[in-house]
């Protein structure tokens, strides 16, 4: 099958490679450029473990054709900290025990980041809505919701 040239921005860096037609973004990220922060969960858009931001929108990498991100900006968990400093969301997740087995955590963090980037001071209902496409089987969601609200509060305090 013919390869298609593909260029996009990955966490602020330009990436250029050749992909097979039909390759999805999750495969490109994990297997071709070794960013394993988006997780493979269900491969059918049901769990949210592969959530990434494309031009700021939370989308599922497993359902996104690689060619669809041509010229666009893809942000993953790998890019959200600043140097050695964790993103406020990451800190709030760690401090609030919002991860147990950890498999859903990268997707949760990206879904939450998409929310806070657009709505810096969300209500609890808005947080619930934002993570409703992400499945967690350990925590019972409560600490995740609380961590997102805590991160929003710490962003407000530092603003």
């Amino acid at each position, binding site marked *: 099958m013919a390869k298609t040239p593909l260029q996009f921005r990955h966490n602020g860096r330009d990436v250029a490679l050749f992909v097979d037609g039909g390759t999805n973004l999750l495969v490109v990220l994990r297997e071709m450029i070794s960013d394993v922060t988006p997780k493979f969960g269900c491969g*059918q858009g049901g769990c949210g473990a592969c959530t990434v931001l494309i031009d700021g929108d939370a989308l599922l990498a497993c359902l996104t054709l690689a060619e669809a991100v041509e010229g666009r900006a893809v942000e993953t968990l790998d890019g959200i900290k600043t140097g050695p400093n964790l993103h406020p969301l990451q800190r709030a997740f760690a401090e609030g*025990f919002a991860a*147990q087995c950890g498999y859903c955590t990268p997707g949760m963090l990206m879904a939450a980041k998409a929310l806070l980037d657009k709505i810096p001071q969300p209500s609890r209902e808005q*947080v619930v809505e934002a993570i*409703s496409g992400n499945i967690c089987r350990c925590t*019972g969601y*409560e*600490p995740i919701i609380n961590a997102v609200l805590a991160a929003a509060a710490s962003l407000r305090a530092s603003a």
Partner: protein
Amino acid sequence: MATHRGRGMAAINYPIGMNLGGDPSQALVHSNPSGKFTVALSSIDLGQGMKSVTRQICAETLGVPVEDVYVDTADSDTGPHCMGSFASRGTHRVGNAVMAAAKEARGVMMEAAAEELEVNAGDLETDGRGNIHVKGAPHRSISVKDVAIAAQFRQGKTISGRGIFLVPLSDVDPETGEMSPATCYAHACLVAEVEVDDETGEVGVVRMDSAYELGRALNPRLVEQQLVGGAWMGMSHALYETTEPYYPDPKQGPRDFVEYLMPGPGDICPHDIAVLERPAPDGPFGGKGPGEMCANPVLPAIANAIFNAVGVRIDELPITPEKVLRAIKSQGGARPQTRR
């Protein structure tokens, strides 16, 4: 047509571990020349925090900082035998095995330090910050790292320890049928408040209040989080989960875990938890562990709350809207019970 509130309670007396074949688990602890320690286990951390809690137990027993202990879990090729992560046994059984292994390793570490400092091992103590010194004379001190280097390169010793925890097999008394299946029990009581819609049969959990007695909470934040997550799983068992739903035809049932219904972030409720600590005499530092008990009392409490709300007794799980609605219809309408 209306929604009805109801409150239900359940209490639980929960055995830690089991008594089939003695329920053993093993642990191995060894130091590297860097003065850091590795705990080898084949036990599995499923997200409940066994890796963290065994790390704490090992560090505390050795007398070294927790950062200096690494726990290598879930490899039955390289780890010693473990019965497994079930029966709420992780903290108690594996914790005890790690404690025994760390105790033996600490003995070797203190002997090696004694040789370096030219004193009796019995006169030495650890400061928990990575040093070993003579009791009452802290200036006569050596770091754990230097002890590990000396053991490896000069003394030719391995600073290591083996641990196993085995409960003596309890036989059944032929006269009375009595036996002791467990050596310690944890306890809990949970009150659930629900809202039942008598038009749709839908049940919403409004809030939960619980008290858990689980020995010493070795890591209180982990315990609390395990209880929060476990209660959610209990609510899921009570109201959502089944491999054989759905109406009207089994063909509409889930085919995989993506379609397997569990409550989402919008279905949860406030849950106030009180943790009571009664250290177990045979637990590692008194710990029993929350284990499966964090989910168990939720199911009967919710079933009781539904009875309290609309007067129907559902004894098959999960308690789906269909079952609630059929039961309400067959008794000719909702019959709210007295609020207690």
